[in-house]
Every structure is written in C-alpha cells, then in structure tokens.
C-alpha cells in the first residue's frame, strides 16, 4: 500500500511495505467482518412491534460463546503470530543486522540543522578529503552505507521516507544503522522528533547519485561547507 504513497528507495523499503500489506490484509478482513456483522445485527434486530428480545440463559450463552468468542480468539492468535513474525523479521533486517558496508557517513543533528560528514574520494572517514555538508546528503546508488547518528543538543530523528528509515538521535550517544539506496533522485530528509520552535524548518536533501555523478560530486562538491580537518 505504501508504495502508492511513497517511492521505494532502499533495499529494505519493499520489505517494510510487504509487512504493511500483510497487516493490511489481516486487519481489513477482521475489520470488515466485525463491521459487517455489527451493521447486519443492527438492521436484523431493530425494534419491531410485538417482538420481544431473546433472553440468553447460561447454557445458551455458553454455546454461543464458543462460536463468538473462542473461535475468533484462536483465529486472532494465529493472525497475531503472522504479524509478529513479519514484524520481527523486518525489524531484525533493518535495525538489528549490520551488513558488510561500503562506506560510512556521520550524521550530526542540532537545533535546527543536519551536518553530514562524507568519506570523500578515499572512502574513509576522518581523513583529509572528508566532505562535510550542511543539510545535503550525497550517496551513491547501490552502495551500502553505515551511518553514525549523533545529536548535539536535544532529541532529533533522522527520517528518510523513501528509505523507510527513521532513527532518533540522542545527545551523548552515537547510534549506528545502515541503508542501501536503490533509486536515483533527490529526496526529503526530515527531523521526525520535536526539537523546538525550528522543528518545522529542519529539512535536509538527500541526493542518490549514479556512480559517475557521485564521483563528479566528490571531485567538485557543491554546497560544500568549508571545513578544516583536524
């Protein structure tokens, strides 16, 4: 369902969207069943002159309860197991595993800007050719990136909707994660955790570039923040 609203821009985007499909199918089934039964009963048992309501004694209740409560109870349990398995497997892929990565990008959030430290031509961080930008993240299509996320002041959240990636940044900690862009283009980066009066003016841009365009950018970084390496 989500793919109709937002491009799938990372290797795991389709897995998250698949999980949403599973949840959508299961919940739609139960929702329609419950609402359908509900409105049917409302119509079927509307007040009619001379008709008295049914009195349910304990024996009858016991029999009906099996049909109305215990069978649905078991079926929902099965559905829950399916949802949990899907959720845990997708979660493990995105948040628990760390594949072999090609490059690392360091992300620092502060009120109200993003600083991105790219590895530069040598592919290594903390070297002289690092490229540091503000509010611009440049990555290469198909490469697997590790990110190291930190915050300087308050909580922020690094959110890239096309990647289906979101991770809060916490001052005093460095949180790692990964992504692999699969769709070239220019996309939004959001701060998704309220961070003060400038929370709404904390966008950044993500540029997913082909290897040639990325090499070109590394050679001539636009939006380049003059930065002296230590």
């Amino acid at each position: 369902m989500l793919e109709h609203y937002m491009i799938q821009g990372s290797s795991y985007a389709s897995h998250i969207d698949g999980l949403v499909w599973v949840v959508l199918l299961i919940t739609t089934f139960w929702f329609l069943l419950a609402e359908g039964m509900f409105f049917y009963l409302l119509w079927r048992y509307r007040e009619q002159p001379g008709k008295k309501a049914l009195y349910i004694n304990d024996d009858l209740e016991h029999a009906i309860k099996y049909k109305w409560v215990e069978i649905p109870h078991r079926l929902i349990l099965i559905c829950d197991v399916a949802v949990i398995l899907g959720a845990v497997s997708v979660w493990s892929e995105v948040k628990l595993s760390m594949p072999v990565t090609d490059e690392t990008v360091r992300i620092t959030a502060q009120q109200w800007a993003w600083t991105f430290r790219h590895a530069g031509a040598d592919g290594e961080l903390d070297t002289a050719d690092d490229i540091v930008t503000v509010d611009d993240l440049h990555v290469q299509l198909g490469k697997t990136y590790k990110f190291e996320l930190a915050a300087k002041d308050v909580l922020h959240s690094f959110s890239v909707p096309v990647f289906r990636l979101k991770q809060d940044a916490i001052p005093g900690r460095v949180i790692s994660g990964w992504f692999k862009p699969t769709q070239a283009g220019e996309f939004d980066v959001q701060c998704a955790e309220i961070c003060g009066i400038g929370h709404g003016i904390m966008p950044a841009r993500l540029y997913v570039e082909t290897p040639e365009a990325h090499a070109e950018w590394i050679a001539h970084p636009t939006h380049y923040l003059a930065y002296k390496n230590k």
Partner: protein
Amino acid sequence: MAESHAHDAHAHDHHEEGWFKKYFWSTDHKMIAKQYLLTGMLLGAVGAYFAYVFRMQLAFPNKPVPGYGLVTGADYNALITNHGAVMIFWVAMPVLIAAFGNFLIPLMIGCDDMVFPRLNRLSYQIFLVSAIVLGASFLVEGGAFGGAWTAYPPLSAKAEYNLTPLGPSLWLIAVALEFVAFLLGGINFVTTAMNSRAPGMKAFDIPMAVWMIVIASILFMASVGPLIAGAFMLLFDQLLGTGFFDPDRGGDPVLWQHLFWFFGHPEVYVVLLPALGFVAEIITTFSRKKLFAYKTVLYTTIGTGVLSFFVWAHHQFIAGIDPRMANVFTVTTVLISIPIAEMCFVYIATLYGGSIRFAVPMLWALAFIAEFLVGGVTGIYLGASGADIYFHDTYFVVAHFHYTFFPIAIIGTFSGVTYWYPKMFGRHMNELWNKVHFWITIVGFNGIFIPLFMLGASGDHRRIFDYSNFPELATPELQQLRVFATVSLLVMLAIQPVFLINFFYSMFKGKKAEANPWNANTLEWQCPSPPPHGNFAVLPEVYRGPYEFSAPDRADDFWPQNSPT
C-alpha cells in the same frame, strides 16, 4: 462510615444551604460530579479552540487565523502540546472517570454518598487549581510549554533549548497536581465500590460501568507513581539544576521516556474503560438484552489492564532503546489485540436477538463500537515494529490515536451524558437536535481523520507547522487533504453549540423525566430524577444481576436489580 455520613447529610438538608456551599463547597457526590463535568466541558472547548487554530495554520499556512491571529512556530508548538495535554488530562480524565465515577458509583451500587466525601471535595479543588496553573503557563514570560505533551528532555529540561523559561515548569506542576486530584478520586472510587454496595450485590451483580471505573482507577494508581517521580526529577532538572535526564552529566534522556510511557500506555486504558462501561450499560438497555458474557468482559478487561503494563516501549521502538527490546514489546503489543477484539465481539454479540431502539444514547454507543474498531485495527500497523519504522511520528499515528481517543473521550462522553442526563438534571434533552448533533459530529470526525491516515502514509511527520520546506510534502494533493481535514473540523465544531444550547436549555425547560425513563435495571434508575441529597429514600437491596432484560415469563421486559419479585 458511609452510614454515619448519611446522618450528617440528612441533618444538613433541614437547614437551607447557602449558594456557595451548595455549588462550590459541596460534599455531595452528584454536585462534585457536575463540577467535574462542567469544568471538563469548559476545558474541552479550550482544547477544541487550540485544535481549530493549529488546523487552520496547517490548511492555510501563515495566514492570520480568525479569532487568533498569525501562528508562529512557537505558538504552534504550544498549541499542539496543550491540545494533547488538555484533552487527556483535563477533559477525558475529569469527565469520564471523575464526573461519571462520582455520579454513578454511589447511585449504581445503591448507597448515599462516597465513603470519603471531603476527600472527594478536595479532589475537585486540587483539580481546579491544576487547571488554573495550566492556564497561568500561557501568561508567563516566554509563553506556554511547547515541547509536545510527552515532554521529552532535554528539550523540556532546558530553557536554552525550548526558549520558554517558565512554561515547562508550570506545565509539569499542573500535571502533577492533576495526578494528585485523581489519586484522591481513585482511592474514593475503589473504597466506595468495595465497601458500600447495597446488601445482596455480589461481585457479578455490579454494573459494568462501575467495574470499569474501578479497574481504571486501579490502573491509574498503579501506573502513575513512576511518572510523578519522573515529573519531579524533570522539575528538579529545570529549576534546581540536577542532571537526571542530562547526558552531559551522566543522566539519560531516554529514562524519561520509559517513566512517561510506563504511565502513558495504561493511561489509554484508564480512559478507555469507563467509556466501555457506559457502552455496556447503554447497548443492553436499548437492545433489551442481557450483556453477553459478563464474565468474559470482566476478565478481558482485567487481562487488558495487566497487559497494558508490558507494552509501553512500543512508543519508543526507534527512540534509541536497545533494538532487541523492540521484539519483546512487539509481541506484547500485538497480543493486546486478543482481549480488545474479544471485548468488541462480545459487545457486538450482545446485539444478537435484541430489540434495538436507536435512541440518542444508543446512537452514540453504537458509534463508539464502529469507530473504535478503526482505532483498534490501525494500531496493529504501529505495534508491528518493522512497519512502525515508517509510521512512527507520522500523521498515521495521529489519526490512529484520535480514532481511539475521540470515541473514548468525545463519543463516550456524549453517550454517557445523553443517557444519564435525565437522572442528573431530572429533565430530557431535545431528541431531534441531539440527533442532528450526533450525525454532523460523526461525519465531521471521520472527515478530519481519514485524510490524516493518507497524509501519514505519504510521509507527513507530526508537529510541523509549515510543510513548505519539504518538497515531497508540499504538494497540492497533500495540501488538499489538509484543507479537507480542517474544513471537516470546522463543520464538526460549528455543530457543538447546538449541543451546548440543548444541554443548558433542557436543564431548565426540558421535558420532565421520570425516575426510570429508559426502563433500565440498575439501581440509579430506582431513585428519583434528580436524586436528592442522600439518593435513596430507602436504601435498596439487590436480588439479581444488572442486565436481566426480556426475561421469560415476565410481563415487563426489564427487571430492576432491587425488585424482590
């Protein structure tokens, strides 16, 4: 204790009480209930006004809002923060638990007043002070707190980050006072229901509304402790310079989130349960049916309550907790669907074989079931950790919890008010205008929040006062959805005065109500409308359960709990 108080109360009746004493210093549970109800309604209007202002800003960005003016980023944050806080702490809690708990518990269990009437009076007075402190936070230098109702530090802890030096402290003090008020109320509810039941009323003869309010009070008391501790730690961080949540000094901001949500999630059920209780009373009365599977309802309620203490971190999947923990909380969260779904099925099953009359309270109760189901199923998307990575802090979340809280706090309240109005005020509201109000409110409500599901799926993140900085979100299509939601809100708000006029006009000019206008069984309908001080002329005895409708071999289709034959 209740009995000795009854003598006091009757003694008081003989000499005329002053106006002040009667309306402001009363220890009568019914008067305190009305104080809570009216204060809650007033604050509901305030919360609705906040929603109006920020929804107008979202639909028509950076244009002056009629009745407010230009909305700045700081204003916007303060409005959303206090909309959430007011609606939960100063509307849902006082109306659902305090107003109805006070009004219904003594009447439904057949006693003359609460066990601790003076504690009850104190509870309302502290509540009133808390509301005044909250109001004061708008008047201080820097303005009201704007760090979201969840008040995550460090933003909430330091003035240099939130730019409101006094607002956050006043906000926290207001919230802490409000908790004290409800602790006092909760003690009263639980003790009264345990000790003052009419002779013959055994555990399974207690009306579901009373059970639900009592269980909600226990959940509240069991969950609020950590948050009160947390609130004081945060207050110390703000005012005394401690570092509980300050990472620079060895504190941990995520600790607050645990303390907050350990309370925050059970809190959802604290307000849900009373509404479920009203719905049980109403659907049985208007379908002339026994509540299906009374014990199942009770056990699933307790089960939900217990489980609700083990799900809190689903609010924090991506907040920087150990990601392995998310798996545990996904399991507990998704499992909560079982008792909740069972409860929905049992309620729907109650309609089977009924003789359903669509009176106004019944319309609201049925709307509760139909709408709450939407809130229930959309919760699965968020409880499934993998999907929550995308949905977290988007409008999908906003739409989801409004599909639970609106049925609870607004639809539940309207169901309760329209059902017990004849008992509270001795008169009937106008049925036609109530139906008009019902339909426009329900259509408006869905018109607000269905577009928000789509906005959330499109990536709209929360608490953003202007989307023009986000090219993916600043599209005409999404803006149309935002405008649609705001227009729906305007329609819904525009019809509310009809209810208010009906409410106050009928208090004085409505058709007089009999003692038992709906032919219901529970004890509150066996005393006069409105009940006098002391409630029952003769304290009732109970012979059967609360839902013996349409029993065979009886001419009447109802059978009051206190009727010997």
